[in-house]
């Protein structure tokens, strides 16, 4: 767990602004519309979600080959899964409508992780139906929160927003992980686009530097208005501030990394002048 965090402290990992806000979404939902959240319940939601995250992350790392110590940690999956699930048994009896939502989200998440391995080429549909669904277990703490506050009608718009944010976050993840995925021979929507659109003889790396990163940023930029539209009826000022922050971070990354990639293209162009010149007949 400490290895996930650059500082060695788990809270620093989960509090990164780039992290999908799985811990914050239920809190924002709980306090929306001026409601005072129940801190005991919300602490349990955080505890359950952390265990669920470690469970998924353990399996995901093993499946995509990023793992180094995960095989020896595999028995700990029993602990993570039990703590994730049993926390909710304190609040919802076996016949409560929370459990069908739990089952559906939990199974969909597992199915997405399993299906992703077999995809040869990702188009936008495959991305939305498989990759973006990997985060769908985040529906569970939101459903628990809405049932705990007896506010079941708020669940649907929050789940719709969460699904859209999961897609956006996964696209961002794929864009920034393109080189790690390429090296690890793991396919993604971004890498599939690179393979489809690169010029003849051009490498994936060259396409990413020349145009792929810009393409990815423009896709993310294009999906933001839908996120804002879905956030609007949720009545959470904190959620809207979060979207402002993510938009600002995206533009900062675009300016910073886009400039760096352009410099690489320029260096390559300067170095290729001599080769082109030498190739000409005398």
């Amino acid at each position, binding site marked *: 767990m400490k290895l996930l965090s650059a500082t060695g402290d788990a809270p620093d990992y989960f509090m990164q602004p780039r*992290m999908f806000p799985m811990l914050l979404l239920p809190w924002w939902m709980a306090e929306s519309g001026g409601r005072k959240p129940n801190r005991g319940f919300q602490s349990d939601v955080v505890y359950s979600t952390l265990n669920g995250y470690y469970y998924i992350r353990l399996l995901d790392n093993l499946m995509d080959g990023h793992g180094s110590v995960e095989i020896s940690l595999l028995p700990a999956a029993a602990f993570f899964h039990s703590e994730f699930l049993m926390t909710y048994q304190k609040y919802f009896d076996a016949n409560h409508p929370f459990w069908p939502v739990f089952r559906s989200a939990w199974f969909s998440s597992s199915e997405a992780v399993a299906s992703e391995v077999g995809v040869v080429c990702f188009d936008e549909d495959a991305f939305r139906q498989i990759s973006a669904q990997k985060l769908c277990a985040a529906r569970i703490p939101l459903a628990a929160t809405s049932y705990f506050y007896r506010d079941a009608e708020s669940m649907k718009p929050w789940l719709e927003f969460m699904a859209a944010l999961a897609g956006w*976050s996964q696209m961002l993840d794929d864009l920034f992980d393109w080189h790690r995925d390429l090296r690890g021979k793991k396919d993604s929507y971004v890498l599939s686009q690179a393979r489809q659109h690169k010029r003849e003889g051009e490498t994936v790396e060259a396409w990413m530097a020349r145009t792929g990163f810009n393409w990815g940023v423009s896709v993310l930029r294009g999906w933001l208005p839908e996120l804002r539209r879905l956030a609007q009826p949720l009545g959470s000022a904190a959620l809207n501030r979060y979207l402002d922050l993510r938009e600002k971070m995206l533009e900062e990354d675009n300016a910073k990394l886009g400039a*760096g990639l*352009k410099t690489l293209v320029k260096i*390559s162009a300067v170095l290729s002048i001599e080769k082109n010149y030498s190739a000409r007949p005398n």
Partner: protein
Amino acid sequence: MTLQQLINKVLNDPAFFSALKKDPAKALQGTDEKLTPEQIKALKELNYKTLEDVGSAFAGPSAIT
């Protein structure tokens, strides 16, 4: 040197670009690149500072999931 090789340098050997800015001919010794004075001038004029974030963003540990 191809764009692919340059990207791999950013991710695995960022010090190469300090050397390239300082003395392009020396930095490329041992490669197939034979630089003209115009190329050396052009390489010295580029803004290498912009490369600093590229390596950490794309080569470091994944920050999200």
